[in-house]
């Protein structure tokens, strides 16, 4: 069966190369049959990649240990669902997943747009073909999931800490995001190559970009939750290079989603948008490179392998390609209108973009700093958390403020007087909130206080917008349904505000205490009394589970179990105990640090408002879906527009 998989991948490679070559020729010479054939090749490439994927999936489910990949990532006792998630548990399989998603997106994009955008699609095909050819090449020649061996009796198994629902959802969701950014990139490249640099490529890819961005964003929140409950150090984001690898393209994509609105309305920022979409794509691939090559001292990284060099080459080549395209088409892209006033909605979008890109570059700098210092100074130096926290505040807090000003400020130009007038209710809300917060003691952290106050401001602006809009349309549902993009966007803004409040609360106002307790003893942390009641032991099929039972009293009441799993494989894993107070969205987080005779060292963290982060994830999803929702009217308009042009 492995031979079938290998053959299918070779077929994929061949088809991808054909799609690139024939597609380029067909587009250059404007030969329809050749272009259609290339497009079909891309679709066929998806089919053969699907076959290869099916082969691997079946091998995993049937525990076929003649596949080296199956043997090293699963074992006989693994349930079907975790055997399947091992598909993306290793390098070769995750590469195959990447190619599968890429060819699926590519096939879908060209099929859905084949009538509306022929002059662009003819170039989209070879671009996606070329990118697919790279991944197919890696899978065929460098890192094959179909290596065979003498069948082992049993496999090495999946690390117990990976056998959880997060492993099922998190990587595929991130891949749907990363790979999804290829589609707008391909359309942008096609627009530049064909010379059709107007807005049609943006309108065509808007939902693709939004979907990819949604998956990438939600996938990161899933990852954060995973880290919080399973890994259990008390935090949810460590600014680890692999975490940053997902954050960077997401930030670039966020900037892009905003600046395209300016291009659609005013025809401005066209060069900037090309740069942004290329940046988002390159960062997505670069992120993949970071994860695979182990080039940076990251706790996440795959084992170091030669694949890093190939990926780096790919990133360099595609970056040069994008730069060359943009320089070539610079005359076509130059804006026809200019920014009229620094106090206008266009300007706030520009500031928003600058801040997002600045934050993105901050993270990038932090990630590549060790490599740069090693090359230029001879020392390997890493940058720690304080750097990221500092710049997150410097760029993030103004961004938060802009989220409130942007939707309310007028287009083209506004005056301070007009602005203050529109913003009077939100400003009042912010002042009231700020005052109450200081009275409640939130002044202990200045950035926290600012974050809360700005959040109140933005939430007030969203409420004001919704109220005003509902007055016009009569119902909130009608309002949102008729302006899905705008109000979906406001819902997403609300999600970001909840995220900001959750992050500020759980970091700036967190209380942490470490103490050793004997049975019967208590510790007091921020108004909570945690009493160590006793120790429980349980033996399961895979581990000896030790749990300390703790009683929570004081502000809230409950029982927490926190302990350690000692797996028979020899590994240990801490299982933290979390008690959630949903009314306050606050968590009492207990880590079983170490046993010492009859004592146990506990670390207790009180994390205010942390659960708003998870709520924000769902609001984010909802808002994105609203903005994504297909609009029949818009589709009709696009078709009519094209018919009108054809005469």
């Amino acid at each position, binding site marked *: 069966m492995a031979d079938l998989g290998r053959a299918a991948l070779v077929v994929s490679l061949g088809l991808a190369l054909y799609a690139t070559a024939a597609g380029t020729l067909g587009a250059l010479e404007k030969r329809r049959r050749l272009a259609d054939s290339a497009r079909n090749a891309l679709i066929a490439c998806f089919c053969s990649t699907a076959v290869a994927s099916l082969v691997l999936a079946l091998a995993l489910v049937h525990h076929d240990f003649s596949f080296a990949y199956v043997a090293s990532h699963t074992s006989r006792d693994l349930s079907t669902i975790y055997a399947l998630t091992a598909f993306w548990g290793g390098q070769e399989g995750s590469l195959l997943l990447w190619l599968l998603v890429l060819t699926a997106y590519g096939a879908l994009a060209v099929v859905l747009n084949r009538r509306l955008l022929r002059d662009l699609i003819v170039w989209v095909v070879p671009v996606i073909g070329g990118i697919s050819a790279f991944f197919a090449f890696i899978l065929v020649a460098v890192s094959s999931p179909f290596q065979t061996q003498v069948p082992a009796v049993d496999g090495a198994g999946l690390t117990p800490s990976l056998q959880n629902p997060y492993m099922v959802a998190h990587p595929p969701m991130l891949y749907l995001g990363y790979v999804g950014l290829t589609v707008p990139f391909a359309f942008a490249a096609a627009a530049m190559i064909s010379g059709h640099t107007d807005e049609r490529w943006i309108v065509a890819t808007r939902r693709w970009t939004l979907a990819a961005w949604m998956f990438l964003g939600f996938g990161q929140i899933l990852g954060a939750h995973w880290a919080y409950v399973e890994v259990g150090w008390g935090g949810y984001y460590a600014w680890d290079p692999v975490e940053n690898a997902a954050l960077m393209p997401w930030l670039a994509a966020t900037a892009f989603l905003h600046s395209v609105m300016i291009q659609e309305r005013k025809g401005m920022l066209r060069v900037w948008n090309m740069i942004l979409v290329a940046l988002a794509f390159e960062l997505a691939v670069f992120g993949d490179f970071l994860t695979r090559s182990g080039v940076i001292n990251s706790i996440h990284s795959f084992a170091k392998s030669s694949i890093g060099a190939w990926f780096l080459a790919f990133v360099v080549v595609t970056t040069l390609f994008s730069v060359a395209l943009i320089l070539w088409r610079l005359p076509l892209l130059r804006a026809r209108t200019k920014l009229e006033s620094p106090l206008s909605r266009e300007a706030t979008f520009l500031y928003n973009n600058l801040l997002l890109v600045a934050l993105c570059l901050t993270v990038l700098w932090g990630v590549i700093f060790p490599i740069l210092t090693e090359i230029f100074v001879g020392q390997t130096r890493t940058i720690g958390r304080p750097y990221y926290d500092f710049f997150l505040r410097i760029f993030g807090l103004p961004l938060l403020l802009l989220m409130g000003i942007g939707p309310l400020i007028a287009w083209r130009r506004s005056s301070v007087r007009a602005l203050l007038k*529109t913003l009077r209710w939100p400003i009042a809300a912010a002042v009231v909130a700020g005052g109450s917060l200081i009275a409640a003691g939130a002044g202990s952290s200045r950035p926290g206080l600012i974050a809360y106050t700005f959040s109140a401001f933005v939430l007030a602006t969203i409420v004001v917008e919704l109220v*005003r809009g509902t007055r016009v349309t009569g119902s909130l549902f009608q309002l949102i349904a008729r302006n899905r993009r705008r109000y979906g966007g406001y819902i997403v803004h609300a999600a970001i505000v909840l995220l900001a409040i959750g992050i500020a609360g759980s970091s700036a106002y967190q209380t942490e205490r470490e103490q050793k307790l004997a049975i019967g003893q208590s510790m007091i942390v921020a108004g909570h009394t945690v009493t160590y009641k006793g120790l429980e032991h349980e033996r399961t099929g895979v581990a000896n589970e030790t749990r300390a039972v703790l009683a929570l009293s004081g502000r809230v009441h409950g029982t927490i179990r926190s302990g350690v799993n000692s797996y028979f494989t020899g590994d240990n894993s801490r299982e933290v105990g979390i008690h959630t107070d949903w009314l306050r969205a606050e968590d009492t987080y207990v880590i079983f640090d170490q046993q010492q005779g009859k004592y146990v060292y506990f670390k207790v963290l009180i994390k205010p408002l942390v659960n708003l982060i998870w709520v924000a994830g769902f609001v984010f999803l909802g808002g994105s879906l609203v903005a994504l929702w297909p609009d029949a009217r818009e589709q009709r308009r696009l078709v009519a527009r*094209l018919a009108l042009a054809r005469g």
Partner: protein
Amino acid sequence: MTELILGGLIAAAAVVLVALPFFLGSDEQLDAVDDAGERRLALIDERDRALAALKELEFDHRAGKIDDADYRALVGPLRRAAADALQALDADGPQE
């Protein structure tokens, strides 16, 4: 053996799919939009943009986001822009 047959089938299907356009389609030039059409598209986009901006201004005014004074100041140029765009589109020539 089954592997070989399956593999052969896949390869054959791929070849068929790829070769199909050469037998079904006619090798006409890609019926892309020509230069005149491109011009028209640009004018249509201009018109749509102007109309959308006008519509947004009306909505924001009714919603109370833009007061009467600002509305009066902004609506004139926008209406002119929309009128110009419509005129340019008509001037470009009636459809066949």
